[in-house]
């Protein structure tokens, strides 16, 4: 493992920002720390960089504990959320800063060559003499990235790299970051609260909540097999249905499904999670939750149908337009909602 965290704790006063986090990142991997604000992801990133000192636990880079190594000697690339470009320096001076302060200092020509190469990499040639204020948000982001890459970092850390950009630029930069990562093969960790971003860009996603890791996995694993109710709700839309769990069976209105993992529970409350696109609608008799169609929204090629069950709870269903048209349903009609995939967790709704 190239970058490793072992049982890391960090508190700010009474606030436990990070508790008992262990994580391993392979060389060349791009990992996303995903979670809501206050989940400890930025603190974790700052601990890796050395900008915060963990109360307990270890950080290892390349197999070495870095506790005794000062921030400036860790050779880490850090891209700050608001870029933190040096406002009184030009683009070229910003990118060259890490080389300029190095001992022994490389020659001016060597620095200039490296700066040129990096600006080419981030597609910012011809902007050498601009000041940060003369750049757009996306351009600043790329300068910040070039500046971080200049010191040939062993690990690249990015704090909400696209947080301050508008939707169109975000999308472009996201793809561009992925491509850059594939070209340079650098080990990277980035923080985001945007699930789409994490799923699209990262090799592996670490979902965090209240300072703890909820789940670690590939984007597919995280999305298709959420390990906890939190992950289910945090990633994508999901319907929550109250149910009863009794000796390996979960019962909800019109449906029973086997839950062998909870065979120890008898008549306990539970919640069934099902994604809108894992629900289908059918007419006539059979298994399924009886619902009434209330509202239909066309979203390009797909349709989102809002339905209500007998208890008055809203259930969202998503399907293709062709399928919806074949069903010949409309607002006010009755149907059965049949889940293709569903996951039950014990607990009160």
């Amino acid at each position, binding site marked *: 493992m190239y970058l490793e965290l072992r049982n890391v704790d960090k508190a700010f006063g009474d606030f436990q920002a990070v508790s008992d986090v262990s994580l391993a990142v392979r060389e060349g991997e791009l990992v996303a720390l995903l979670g809501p604000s206050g989940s400890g992801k930025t603190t974790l990133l700052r601990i890796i960089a050395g900008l915060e000192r963990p109360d307990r636990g270890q950080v290892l880079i390349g197999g070495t504990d870095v506790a005794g190594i000062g921030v*400036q*000697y860790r050779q880490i690339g850090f891209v*700050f959320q608001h870029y933190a470009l040096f*406002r*009184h320096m030009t683009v070229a001076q910003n990118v060259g*800063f890490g080389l300029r*302060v190095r001992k022994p200092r490389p020659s001016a020509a060597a620095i200039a060559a490296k700066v040129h190469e990096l600006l080419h990499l981030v597609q910012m040639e011809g902007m050498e003499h601009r000041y940060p204020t003369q750049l757009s948000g996306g351009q600043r982001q790329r300068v910040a990235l070039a500046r*971080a890459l200049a010191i040939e970092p062993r690990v690249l850390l990015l704090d909400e790299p696209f947080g301050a950009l508008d939707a169109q630029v975000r999308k472009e930069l996201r793809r561009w970051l992925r491509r850059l990562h594939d070209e340079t093969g650098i080990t990277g960790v980035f923080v985001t609260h945007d699930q789409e971003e994490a799923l699209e860009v990262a090799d592996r996603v670490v979902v965090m909540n209240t300072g703890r890791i909820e789940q670690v996995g590939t984007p597919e694993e995280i999305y298709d097999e959420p390990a906890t109710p939190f992950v289910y709700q945090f990633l994508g839309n999901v319907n929550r249905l109250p149910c009863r769990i009794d000796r390996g069976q979960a019962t909800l209105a019109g449906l029973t499904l086997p839950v062998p993992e909870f065979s120890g529970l008898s008549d306990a409350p539970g919640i069934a999670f099902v994604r809108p696109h894992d629900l289908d609608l059918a007419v006539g008799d059979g298994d399924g939750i009886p619902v009434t169609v209330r509202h239909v929204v066309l979203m390009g090629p797909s349709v989102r149908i809002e339905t209500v069950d007998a208890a008055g709870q809203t259930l969202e269903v998503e399907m293709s337009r062709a399928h919806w048209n074949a069903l010949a349903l409309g607002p006010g009609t009755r149907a059965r909602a049949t889940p293709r995939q569903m996951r039950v967790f014990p607990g009160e709704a």
Partner: protein
Amino acid sequence: MRRAVVAPTTEPALVQWGLTLAALGFVGIFLVLPLGTVFAEALAHGPAAYLRAVSDPDALAAMRLTLITAAIAVPLNLVFGVAASWAIAKFDFRGKSVLISLIDLPFSVSPVVSGLIFVLLFGLQGWFGPWLAAHDIKLIFAVPGIVLATVFVTFPFVARELIPLMQEQGSEEEEAALVLGASGRQIFLLVTLPNIRWGLLYGVLLCNARAMGEFGAVSVVSGHIRGLTNTMPLQVEILYNEYQFVAAFAVASLLAGLALVTLAAKTLLEHRFAATRAAAGKD
């Protein structure tokens, strides 16, 4: 029917003119007129009398003392101001609010009281007076006392200017420099100092103007010994009390000239300052 196009924020001409005249009149009576009087009185008996007054040995001694005092007080408060604002803006520690209040203390205490504090501490009857006398160290009614009092009075200028500026800038740029491998010295010289340079210069300028013009505190600790412990403001007072109006106003005109230079420099700096801050942007 035609209607005059009037911008919604425009006041009637009468109000505009009235306000402008009132402001100009006020400035004229309270600022321009006194300043003009200083120069007019100084030159009342011609340039020769003016030059004689300015080159009087006591006047020259006063100028020398004023310059020496400023030359010691300003660098001291420059170092202290940068250190204090750095600590306050970039770190969290216990007693931070106490430190901020303490920095403001010289502003809220009357300068005469400040001078008295030093007399009570270091004067012959003061707390440390006997010890100082026993070791033949003379602070009060001597140059060191004047410098001490001036340092105290001009204490807040640099820090007050820098604290809000540095707080607004935060420490992200310093952190970025640190991660990029810069040492503490490099961070200060290459990142922090360039970011605060105009604010720092501005603070130093104000500090210098006050150091040279300070009267109250210095008056108490100086003892008014001609040619030895008189600064320029004190010299002006003595000459005036002795009805040497030309000489008094001649020395005063030098101080007034200094004020004008400071004002010009300040305006220039504010201009540069605003320009760089606009260029630096606040995102």
